[in-house]
């Protein structure tokens, strides 16, 4: 094989695609192919996404009435706990990194696999074992601590299966750490010749920044959960104040992981959106280097703001002011990214296929989520709205409106690459629009209910909040319908969809220069990179002419 410079085209691989490389069960369960492992993750997290969705649907159904007629107090508490634990650790954290990150990172940097393929497979087994451990807790009777496992409630007062659930999360944490180590090594060691750091697609930068956070933050979660398990199981006094322990210590440790974890969830989403917006606007991303610095900045400053979860917890008022300051600072790089994405549209050739609709949805919802973050960084407002539905709405705007929208943008953008098939775009656009409206319908009323004072995790509530809960619950069922559509038309496309060809979107990026689906070895010949990312038009010129000539060729 000879090296082939990219700028021109790569030869089309003759080998069978990775999907056709073996049909036995063991060819999947013992695979070390990053693309197959990505699909194993995709199936796993989709399963957990729908489980978590069913749990919260019951909760929203129950909240139609203020008196909680459908469920008992304990069942209600177990359901929202299950929703939180499953969605955070078994869907959100692995979502984009473990599926698209796994599939695309080697392709985007021109490598044939990740640095440690067997460790990659092991990571998937870890999350599977962790997931079953947590599912066991559910089947054995549930957990009622909330996803936050606050002590001393979780260690001394809850009568539910806290240990099994915490152990499951503990195990899944190692999956995160291993994946992070793998991606960091891959990015450092396996970039194709000529793929310098500032020629990396922003998605690779996003995955790289995310991996740093995973590796640095997750061990703190692991040790925190061990302390919870030890105190609950062996009665070693750690957080118990009766023996001089400090329940607030738990919160500091927990949020030291869980705030950076927000960036584990949202940085990859930013990466996806950067790829999609440039492709469908046919433009170089506006301010590439600022986008990179912003992501690295978010990853670093994100470690220093955990105390904004604890303004009313009894931590020192002066510490709160420092955390408030840093929280305002961390908002800046996110704002810059929003401006840059918007500016990327300027003078573009904008097309509105489904991936772009999802990405624009991300842009709007992430902006609202980010701005309400400024409210929460302000101590007097946070004192009023923390632990109310205002916070619930805020983080769902970031994680569901933001990250899940981006997840669907990525799914629709790379689906032809992953499966080799095209889906029916009108259906996908309809689902994208329905998801956007369903989401706002569900979560916008929660901002108002929260400022009015409705506390979160409330099974019964004063009747004056009912109107907002009815709106929210009705919206949740619109949203659920929108989530049920993609599995239908995407599943349909697997059999009846037209063949995609190697580059249906006419996109730049190495992943589009090999066949769809790619062969086991990714490329027919190792690529040699000679230009930066997003060459949608010659530097300094409008995309107009370039787009036309390319479009004709395709």
């Amino acid at each position, binding site marked *: 094989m000879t090296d082939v410079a990219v700028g021109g085209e790569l030869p089309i691989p003759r080998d069978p695609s990775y999907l056709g490389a073996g049909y036995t069960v063991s060819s999947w369960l013992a695979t070390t192919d990053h693309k197959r492992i990505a699909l194993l993750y995709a199936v796993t997290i989709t399963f957990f996404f729908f489980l978590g969705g069913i749990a919260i649907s019951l909760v929203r159904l129950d909240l139609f009435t203020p008196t909680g007629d459908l469920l008992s107090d304990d069942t209600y508490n177990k359901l929202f706990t299950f929703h939180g634990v499953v969605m955070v650790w078994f869907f959100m954290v692995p979502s984009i990194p473990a599926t698209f990150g796994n599939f695309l990172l080697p392709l985007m940097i021109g490598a044939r696999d990740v640095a440690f393929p067997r460790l990659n497979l092991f990571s998937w087994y870890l999350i599977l074992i962790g997931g079953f451990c947590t599912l066991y807790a559910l089947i054995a009777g549930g957990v009622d601590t909330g996803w936050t496992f*606050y002590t001393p409630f979780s260690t001394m007062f809850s009568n539910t299966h806290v240990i099994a659930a915490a152990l499951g999360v503990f195990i899944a944490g190692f999956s995160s750490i291993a994946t992070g180590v793998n991606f960091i090594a891959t990015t450092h060691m396996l970039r194709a010749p000529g793929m310098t750091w500032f020629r990396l697609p922003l998605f690779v930068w996003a995955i790289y920044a995310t991996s740093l956070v995973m590796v640095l933050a997750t061990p703190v979660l692991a040790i925190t959960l061990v302390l919870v398990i030890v105190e609950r199981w062996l009665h070693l006094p750690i957080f118990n104040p*009766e023996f001089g322990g400090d*329940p607030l210590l738990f919160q500091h440790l927990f949020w030291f992981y869980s705030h950076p974890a927000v960036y584990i969830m949202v940085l990859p989403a930013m990466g996806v959106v950067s790829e999609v917006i440039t492709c469908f606007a046919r433009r170089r991303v506006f301010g590439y280097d600022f986008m990179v610095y912003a992501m690295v900045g978010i990853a670093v400053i994100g470690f220093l703001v955990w105390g904004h979860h604890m303004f009313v917890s009894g931590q020192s008022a002066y510490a709160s002011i420092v955390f408030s300051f840093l929280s305002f600072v961390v908002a800046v790089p996110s704002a810059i990214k929003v401006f840059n994405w918007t500016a990327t549209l300027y003078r573009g050739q904008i097309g509105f296929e489904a991936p772009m609709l999802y990405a624009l949805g991300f842009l709007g919802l992430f902006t609202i989520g980010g701005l309400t973050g400024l409210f929460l960084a302000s*101590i007097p407002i946070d004192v*009023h709205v923390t632990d109310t539905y205002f916070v619930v709405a805020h983080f769902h705007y970031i994680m569901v409106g933001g990250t899940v929208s981006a997840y669907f943008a990525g799914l629709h953008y790379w689906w032809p690459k992953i499966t080799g098939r095209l889906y029916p775009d009108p259906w996908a656009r309809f689902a994208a629009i329905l998801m956007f409206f369903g989401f706002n319908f569900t979560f916008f009323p929660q901002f108002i209910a929260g400022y009015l*004072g409705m*506390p979160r995790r409330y099974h019964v509530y004063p009747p004056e909040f009912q109107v907002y809960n009815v709106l929210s619950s009705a919206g949740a069922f619109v949203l659920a319908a929108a989530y049920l559509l993609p599995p239908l038309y995407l599943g349909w496309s697997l059999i009846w969809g037209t063949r995609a060809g190697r580059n249906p979107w006419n996109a730049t990026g190495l992943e589009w220069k090999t066949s769809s689906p790619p062969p086991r070895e990714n490329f027919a010949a190792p690529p040699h990179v000679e230009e930066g990312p997003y060459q949608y038009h010659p530097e*300094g010129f409008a*995309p107009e002419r370039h787009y036309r000539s390319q479009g004709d060729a395709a």
Partner: protein
Amino acid sequence: MSVFMPEVASTQAAQTDGIYFALLALSAIIILLVTALILVFSIRYRRGSKAERGAMPRVMSREFEVGWTSATLFLALFIFWWVSSTQLSALVAPKDALQIHVVAKQWMWKTQHANGAREINELHVPIDTPVRLVMTSEDAIHSFFVPAFRMKKDVLPGRYTETWFQPTKLGVFHLFCAEYCGSEHSRMVGRIVVLQKDAYSRWLAAQPQGDGLAKEGEAVFRARGCSGCHAEASKVHAPNLNGLYGRPVQLADGRTVTADESYLRDSMLMPRRDIAAGYEPIMPTYAGILTEGEIISLTAYIRSLSGKEGSRK
């Protein structure tokens, strides 16, 4: 309560709402700006439209980027400064604040007035008077939340947390537990009743009040043997409690702390942690011996020895 805003019933509520409206206005401007740009670009530069594309002016990338980065940073820091400066002045309760003790437990609120009057899931307070809450929990963490006052503070086991408010409106307001605390978390609710000052005095006088907190504390002081060392006549070399409350205390390790509720509580339960300078650490711990209620009444008794606030009304 209007459809969008909770009642404004404390001095803090008005301040918080001011910040809320300012941020709402700012957010609306930013959202309108971003949405307008996205819409205009999407229509004008839709694929195949006739709009002029031309070359991008070079100042666009660098100068624009630096410009909106510094503008955003400046804006963020300005909001931080504005919000925090209003907050710093409200950190400490006024000296003349009425003091209420709150004990939270699964799933109820117990409140206690200075004269010993107790309430369950209710708190009566006089209007236009600062009220200071000194709170602790008997089990998990709870949180004392009164939306109409824009006030919330977690209530922790094993220590005191404090907050204060000044009601400005008569009426009955929600009290919620805002920190998840188990099965009946959502039923751990109560009422805050704000009365006219004279109505409050009448209400307070009508309560069965026992001897008053400080009097109760004095009884505990004798019954639990505190008086053996700390009474004026005692021969043991122990710190004198007269006038102690609210004063700075020099500690053996060189630090100085203020003798507030938290310090007094820690001294009873963890006497070896903060040792007053010049005294042998001979006091045994009273952890597990004193109940939360007894600690509260002992504290009230010690406070009364400073004449700050007594059982005499």
